[in-house]
């Protein structure tokens, strides 16, 4: 039996709040073709609607700092 490979992807969105609080939102199974515009639109929505707020003092949402796509491949080795 050959090695078994599994690949999982996640999108890590690092958010910054005006009280200095930072938080990473992890979305599993992201689309393979996310445009920068989609991220900037999400940032605008979060800034305007203020649905997510800072942890320390309920401070306002500041911005999306970084967005990282993490692809993880696991190889279950055939040791037979």
């Amino acid at each position, binding site marked *: 039996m050959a090695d078994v490979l599994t690949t999982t992807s996640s*999108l890590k969105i690092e958010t910054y709040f005006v009280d200095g609080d930072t*938080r990473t*939102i*992890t*979305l*599993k*199974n*992201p*689309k*393979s073709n*996310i445009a920068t515009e*989609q991220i900037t*639109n*999400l940032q605008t*929505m*979060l800034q305007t*609607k*203020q*649905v*997510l*707020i*800072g*942890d320390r003092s*309920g401070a306002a949402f500041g911005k999306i700092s970084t967005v990282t796509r993490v692809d993880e491949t696991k190889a279950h080795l055939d040791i037979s």
Partner: protein
Amino acid sequence: MAKLSMQLKAKDQTGKSVSTTFTNVNPEAPDNDKLQVAMAMNSLTANTYSSTDLIKTINLDTETDAGKQTPTFSLAKTTFTQAEVNALVSQNITTNSDGQFWIGKVNATNDNPNAGYGSILFGITQSETPNIKISPNVKNGYEQTAFIGTFAVGVFETDTYQSAEVTVTITA
């Protein structure tokens, strides 16, 4: 204040259920805005949107559903009318059945001017030590409303009066 989280539920390409929780959701944001953000987050994934739940967590040891109850009372300067001053200066004092007489008043602050009012009574009887009873009253309909009451205790001299300023904090 109760903490709010949002749980986005979706299904991936194999039909498996996937959920993502967003913490520290703003309780003041309209529910529709919360929903739009959840859906926007889902649109970055290859999952099919199912639903979004709003989850509220309340620490019952320190909070209630309406939020943390921390009544604060402060004794502060207030205004006495000349008639009120005259009443005490002339010793035209009426005691109640408990032997107490009025020495001050309670006003609710501007935050909630209709919520409370009351009186401060001072009494000395032969068998008891001097006592001060603060009797705030809550108006009908405001029983569940927390309010900040300001109390005044007056020291009266012949023609003038001075108000004492003391701060008392009561925590629930």
